[in-house]
């Protein structure tokens, strides 16, 4: 069974069509990258899967279960985690508190009003492990606002991984990063277990080709092509409208 099936999805802002009859399937464990020019509707697509944006028609099916139109919190609890194109953290809280909030949602008891959260050793251990995973060892006490841009993006992923999702949605995880930071991010994504499926938006072609099993090209809300990285590189239409621009 596929982890995600998108069927004839449509979405628009007023007259502006941002998702135009999009159908897409992602197999379990697949790394799928969406590319496309700015304004192609990539973020909008992720927002519909995450529940942040309502589709006009079509279906979003998660492991065979129709989740179209569900609230973001519900989608999240069904095993879909995401990051945002713009860093979207708890900027005034520490790295540790950021992660603990995410962990509490899945493994803690958020309605507990009596035990002291800071003394929860189990969650603290989980958080420490997450920090290692996203290369933020020993940074737990820092306020998220004071992290460098690249570190903030790593924390974004840490928060997303906290709930042990089945499907991870990444919206331009390397945007605005230095080459060194980008390399670290590729390592980080490469080290994710294959039990986790990844759908990711990316602009940087070296990242795309080092990560992707399959690539989808989105252009003005429509799918232009889907295939292996090699297929996409060889596709004349794609070269014309997209890859041509990048070079």
């Amino acid at each position: 069974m596929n982890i995600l099936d998108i069927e004839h999805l449509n979405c628009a802002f007023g007259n502006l069509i941002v998702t135009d009859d999009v159908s897409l399937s992602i197999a379990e464990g697949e790394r799928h990258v969406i590319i496309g020019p700015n304004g192609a509707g990539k973020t909008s697509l992720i927002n519909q899967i995450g529940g942040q944006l309502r589709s006009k028609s079509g279906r979003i099916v998660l492991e065979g279960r129709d989740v179209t139109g569900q609230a973001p919190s519900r989608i999240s609890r069904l095993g879909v985690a995401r990051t945002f194109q713009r860093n979207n953290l708890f900027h005034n809280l520490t790295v540790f508190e950021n992660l603990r909030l995410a962990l509490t949602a899945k493994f803690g008891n958020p309605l507990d009003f009596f035990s002291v959260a800071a003394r929860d050793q189990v969650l603290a251990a989980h958080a420490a492990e997450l920090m290692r995973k996203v290369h933020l060892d020993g940074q737990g006490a820092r306020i998220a606002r004071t992290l460098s841009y690249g570190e903030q993006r790593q924390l974004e992923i840490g928060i997303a991984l906290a709930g042990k999702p089945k499907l991870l949605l990444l919206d331009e995880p390397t945007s605005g990063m230095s080459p060194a930071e980008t390399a670290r991010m590729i390592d980080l994504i490469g080290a994710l277990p294959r039990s986790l499926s990844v759908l990711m938006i990316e602009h940087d072609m070296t990242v795309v080709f080092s990560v992707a099993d399959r690539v989808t090209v989105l252009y003005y809300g429509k799918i232009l092509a889907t295939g292996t990285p090699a297929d996409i590189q060889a596709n004349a239409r794609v070269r014309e409208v997209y890859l041509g621009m990048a070079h």
Partner: protein
Amino acid sequence: MELLVAQLLNGLVYGVLLFLMAAGLSLIFGLMNVVSLAHGSFFMLGAFLGLAIVQVTGSFWIALVLAPLAVALLGIVMEVLFLRPLYARGHMDQVLLTFGFTFVFYDLVQTVWGRIVLRLPTPAILQGTVDIGAGVFSAYRLFLIGFGFAIAVLLWLLLERSRIGAMVRAGVDNAAMAAGLGGNIALLFTGIFGFGVALAGLGGVAAGPTLGLYPGMDTDILIPAFIVIVIGGMGSLRGAFVGSLLIGIADTFGKAYLQSIALFLIYLAMTVVLLIRPQGLFGIRYADAPPSAVARTMPPSTKATRAVGLIVLAVLIVLPFGLPDYPRALIAEIYIFAIFAMSLDLILGFSGLMSLGHAAFFGLGAYAVAVLGVQFGLDAWIGLAAGVALAAAGAALIGFFCVRTGGIPFLMLTLAFSQLVFSVALKWRDVTGGSDGMALAEQPSFFGFSLSHSLVMYFMTLMFFVAAYLGLRRLIDAPLGHVFVGIRENEPRMAAIGYPTLAYKLVAFTIAGAIAGLAGGLYVIYNGFISSDAVYWTASGDILIMTMLGGAGTLIGPPIGAAVFLLMKNVASSYSEHWLAIIGTAFICCVLFFPGGIWGSVQKLRGKAAP
């Protein structure tokens, strides 16, 4: 039939006056993302300045032109000197500042013109009546309707057809623009603010001959204008127009045919609109301004903080023995309001929800004790338990509607709902005693000790205060408290990591309501008396001020704020008639010079000193 037409016209008159208020409020909100509680004050000042001008010049028409200009000038000075430095700080400070100004302006009007109801003379040529076929009608009122519609058309032309209008609409469409205050935008803001204030002043003069002039007319027009904006939609001129006429007509017909349930119908209409279209009939969904930077989660207690706490507690226990009755009673009152303020802080500081209707839950708790005691002879402590339950239930119900919104709409909704509770307390005289209030027959005893002894009262209130403090402290350190803080910091992110945020906000609102109910019940036990004043919106404003004065987002701040507020009120009111102005000025200074409140500033100083 004749009566029906007359009611309709009266409704239009009221609607037109509401529109002059609501249009300015809505513009200021839509463009600047600022909510000005002083807008009603400008309406009132317009009316009184109009009266002064009529008395000097003898001409209503000169007053109709000059008074709004004078008020606009005042508004511009206020915007440039006081409001402008606060744009970067978020809503809470703006609300506190403009609330401070309502005190000052109220005191000013009361001092200059007294408390009696005055009337602006109707201009000579409009003194007669006109036969409009379906009956005779006051010429002035007909003129008002025409005048209001003409202003509406002019406003529409200005917004739709002019360059300035295009800039304004661009601002409404793009709230982010407001963040990067360029030079032109600062000028535009000042212009819009002055313009909105002028409209309010114009409304005040125009209302003078029909509504009468009195201190307090500011609130009487502000609250319905808020309801208009909630129904019509924020930042929409069309919404302000349609909403004003709807409310104006509904209110007039309601009062004529349904008497006391009229208010309920209006709130019911408001609730229905908000359920179907949370952004109001014509409002646009807009991105809310980021919450102002309140304190982060508190570090859990250490040995040192616990030792300090114990020392403070010891002082509080020893303190009353050296004091006479009066200060003991005052401190007992402070404890009660400290509980109230801490409960507000749970939603305000820790969950990022700014309520201007928290007195409703205080009132539910208070009336439960009073009504059960007086009408049913029930013991006050049973009443207190019932009051907490009633306040929690009320908060759950009201919160169900309110938590769907945030920011300013939340503020307006909580305000409107609390006015609903107020109107029940006011109108249901048989049960509540209305504005005359009701008194407990006898002071209850506390574990066998009579609360008529000030020392017993002191320790009873201290006990509840300490219990509330420790309970809230525990809650805030617990996972649930951290969830509240997470929602305050970044609600969409909380939703994306799996928290149904509406449900959690409702939980916070309900707990806060229950604790406010506890404070209200204690207040009746303490005071032996309750009247509808305790539920009036200014009571909600007072508690908001106490909380922010002390420092929202901390648990120590609200008790400090309650103490400072009540001490200041007692001292100022015993030494000067102008205590309202003194308190108002104090708040204005506090907002300007102590962002984050007293405790927030102390923490900041300590933070600077520490590393």
